[in-house]
C-alpha cells in the first residue's frame, strides 16, 4: 500500500512538472500580446516562445515584409502590435515615428535574467532587448583553397588573388559570389566596403552626406574588381540567389550573412563537395585598413508605446520568456543564431560573427536618416557597376538623391 501511494505521488509530481513546462515555465500574462517581425528560424523560435505564455492571447505575424507594416501597425491607439522584432537598421523607423516605449521601469521590475549587454540603450533609455547578433563574413570552400594551395583570404585583395588562381587553373570560371542585386543588397555591400576603407556616411553630427569621398571611390572600384569574378548576372543576385550558387558548387568565396551559416549545407540539393568543403571565417579587411569591411547587427524586440501598461507588461514578460536561457538546451535552437542569451556557447557556424565582433567591426549606423541613404545607394550604384558612369558621378548621384529625400523628410533644410 505504501509503495503504491508513493508511485501515485511520484506520478502526480511528474504530472505537475509537465504541466508547469507546458505553461511556459510559469509564464503567466494578464493582457494581450501581438508580435510583428521578420521570418527566419531564430525569430520563429522567439515567436513560438512568446506563445507558450498562458492567461491571455499571444498572436504573431512573422513576415519578410514586417518593416512595411510595423510602423503603421503601431501608430494607432491602441496599437495593433504590442511588440515589433527589429534589427539595428529598422528600430530607427520606429523611433523616428515615436511608436516604441522606453523599457527602463519594466527592466527594473522584470529584467532579471537579461544580460546588461542585451539592453539597447539610446540616450539613457532602454529601447529594445537584443537576443541575437549578426554580421556578414567570409564563407569559402576549403577543398578548393587547398587545391590551389592558399590560406583563406583575410583581405579582399587576397580574395581576388585566390579567385584569379581558381580561374587560371580552370576550376571555376566565376569563383566569387556576392549579394549584389540592385537595391538594398548592393547598397549593403557598398556600406561594408566603404566602412572598410574608413569612410563615414555623414559629416559628423549632421545629416549632410559624405559618401562622395576617396573612400567611396575606392569602395566602388573594389566592388567593380570583385564583380569581374562573379556570375555576369550579379546585379540580380540577392542573398538567396548567391547562396543557391554556393550550394550548387558554382562559387568558392563569398561574403555572406552569419545568420545563414548554420543552414548553408542543410538544405536539399547541396552537393557532397559543398557539404564537406564548406567553412566560415571572419570578415575581410580592405585597402590595408584594420576595420573589417562589414557591419555588425543585432536583432531584438521592442514594446509599443500606444498600449496600456498592462499590455506592455504582458508583452515584456512573454518576450522575455521567449529568450530565456533555457531555450538553448535544444541543440537545434542553439544553432539557429549567434544568441546574446546567457549561457550561449558559440557553435562552429558562429565563428564568423564572433570574429567580426572581436575585430572591431563597425555596427550598422543607427541614424534617423540612414534608411534614406541606404535607399539612395541602392538606386544609384547600379549604373557604375554596369560601367555606364564613373564612380564619382555615381556617388554624386547618390548624394543628390539622398539630399532630395532628406529634405522631404525634414532632416535637411
Amino acid at each position, binding site marked *: 500500500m505504501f509503495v503504491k501511494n508513493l508511485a501515485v505521488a511520484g506520478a502526480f509530481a511528474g504530472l505537475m512538472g509537465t504541466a508547469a513546462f507546458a505553461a511556459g515555465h510559469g509564464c503567466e500574462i494578464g493582457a494581450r500580446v501581438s508580435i510583428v517581425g521578420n521570418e527566419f528560424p531564430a525569430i520563429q523560435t522567439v515567436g513560438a516562445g512568446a506563445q507558450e505564455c498562458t492567461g491571455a492571447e499571444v498572436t504573431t505575424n512573422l513576415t519578410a515584409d514586417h518593416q512595411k507594416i510595423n510602423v503603421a501597425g503601431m501608430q494607432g491607439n491602441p496599437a495593433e502590435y504590442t511588440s515589433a522584432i527589429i534589427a539595428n537598421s529598422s528600430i530607427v523607423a520606429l523611433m523616428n515615428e515615436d511608436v516604441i516605449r522606453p523599457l527602463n521601469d519594466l527592466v527594473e521590475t522584470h529584467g532579471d535574467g537579461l544580460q546588461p549587454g*542585451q539592453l539597447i540603450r539610446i540616450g539613457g533609455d532602454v529601447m529594445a532587448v537584443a537576443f541575437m547578433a549578426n554580421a556578414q563574413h567570409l564563407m569559402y570552400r576549403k577543398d578548393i583553397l587547398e587545391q590551389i594551395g592558399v590560406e583563406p583570404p583575410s583581405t579582399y585583395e587576397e580574395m581576388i588573388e585566390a579567385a584569379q588562381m581558381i580561374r587560371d587553373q580552370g576550376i571555376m570560371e566565376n569563383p566569387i559570389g556576392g549579394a549584389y542585386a540592385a*537595391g538594398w543588397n548592393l547598397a549593403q555591400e557598398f556600406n561594408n566596403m566603404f566602412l572598410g576603407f574608413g569612410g563615414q556616411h555623414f559629416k559628423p553630427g549632421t545629416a549632410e552626406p559624405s559618401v562622395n569621398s576617396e573612400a567611396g571611390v575606392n569602395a566602388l572600384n573594389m566592388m567593380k574588381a570583385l564583380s569581374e569574378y562573379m556570375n555576369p548576372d550579379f546585379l540580380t543576385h540577392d542573398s538567396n540567389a548567391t547562396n543557391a550558387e554556393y550550394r550548387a558548387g558554382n562559387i568558392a568565396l563569398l561574403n555572406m550573412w552569419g545568420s545563414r551559416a548554420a543552414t548553408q549545407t542543410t538544405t536539399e540539393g547541396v552537393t557532397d563537395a559543398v557539404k564537406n568543403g564548406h567553412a566560415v571565417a571572419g570578415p575581410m579587411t580592405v585597402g590595408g585598413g584594420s576595420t573589417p569591411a562589414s557591419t555588425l547587427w543585432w536583432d531584438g524586440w521592442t514594446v509599443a508605446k500606444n498600449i496600456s501598461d498592462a499590455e506592455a507588461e504582458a508583452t515584456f514578460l512573454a518576450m522575455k520568456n521567449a529568450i530565456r536561457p533555457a531555450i538553448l538546451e535544444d541543440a537545434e535552437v542553439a544553432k539557429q543564431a549567434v544568441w546574446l542569451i546567457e549561457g550561449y556557447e558559440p557553435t562552429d557556424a558562429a565563428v564568423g560573427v564572433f570574429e567580426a565582433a572581436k575585430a572591431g567591426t563597425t555596427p550598422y549606423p543607427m541614424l534617423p536618416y540612414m534608411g534614406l541613404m541606404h535607399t539612395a545607394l541602392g538606386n544609384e550604384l547600379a549604373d557604375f557597376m554596369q560601367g555606364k558612369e564613373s564612380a564619382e558621378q555615381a556617388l554624386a548621384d547618390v548624394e543628390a538623391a539622398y539630399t532630395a*529625400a532628406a529634405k522631404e523628410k525634414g532632416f535637411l533644410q
Partner: protein
Amino acid sequence: MRHKTFLWFFLPTGLAMLLFIALPIVSVLVQSVFAPHEAVLKEVENCTPLVGCVTETTIDQEATRELRENQPLGRFVGLDIYLDRGHLAVAEVGQAWVDAATWDEFWHRLFNLPLYRALSFTLTFTFLVTPLLILLGLMIALAVNSLHRHLKGLMIFFSLLPMIVTPLIGSLILFWMIDSRGIIGSALVSIAGDPNFSLKASTGLMWVSLIVYGVWHSAPFAFVVFYAGLQTLPKDQLESAQIDGATRWQQVRYVVIPHLMPLVTFVALIQLMDNFRIFEPIVGFNASAHATSLSWIIFNDLGGETRQLSAASATSVLTIFGVAILLSPVLVRTWRDFRGKT
C-alpha cells in the same frame, strides 16, 4: 431616361466611385503637398551589444511632438516635392540644358534622373507593347476562328494561359529561363559562343525580355476581345467579298478589320493604361538596374526602411497625369463624336 431616374440609377455607382476613386485621389494629392516636419536632432549615447557605447544622432521626440500635434498633416511644401530631383527635377534639367554642349550629353544627363529614366522605359514599353499585342491578339483570334470547332475550345484555353498565370509568377518563370544557367540563357550562351554572355547583364536585352513578356502576357486579352468580335462578323459582307474575288488578306484588311475597329480602340485604351503602369515584371525580373517605371518608383519609395510617403504620393499624381495625357487623344475624339451626335 428621365434625369431623376438616371440619378437614382447612378447613385450606388457614383457613391462607390466617390469612395474608392475620388477620395483616395484627393488624399494622395494632399499628401503630395505636405511633408513631415523638420526633425529636431540631438546627440545621445547609444549602447549596443558586442560594441559598447558610441555617440550617435537621434530625433528629439519631445521637441518634435509639439510640432506634430499642432500640424498633424506636416509642413506645407506646395510643389517642392514635385520639382525636386526625385520627380520633375526642374533645377537639374535646367542645369543640364545650360551645361550640355551637345544633345547627346543633355539626354545622358536627363536620363540619369530617376523620373526621366523611368519614363524612358515606361514610354518605350507602352508604345511597343500595345501595338504588338494588338497585332498578335488579332492573329491568334483569326487563327483560332478558322479552326475546326472541336479544336477551338482547347486552343482558346491554351491561348488564355498567359493571362491566367499571375503576372509575378509568369515573369518569374521567364526570369529563371533567361538566367545564365536557365534553359534560354544557356542556349543563348552556346549560340553566342561567349561563356559570359548574359541577358540579365545587358540593359538592351533586359528591355527586350520585358517587352516580350509584356506582349506574351497581354496578347490573350486582345485575343479574347477580338475573338468575341469575330463571332459578330456579318457573313453576307464576307460572302460578297469572296464573290468579288477578294483574297483572304483583302477580306481581313477591308472587311474584318473595319468591323473590329471599335474593339481595337477599346483594347488600345485599356492596354495603354495598363502598360503605362508596368510594375510586376520589373520586380519579377529583378530588373531595376536596367529598367524602372513610375509604379516601381512608388513601390521603392514606400519599401525602404524610412518610408517616403510624400515622394510616393507625388509620383502617384504624376502617374495619373501621365495616363490622362496618354488617353487624351482618344478621349477628345470620343467627346467630339458625342458632341456631333447631339
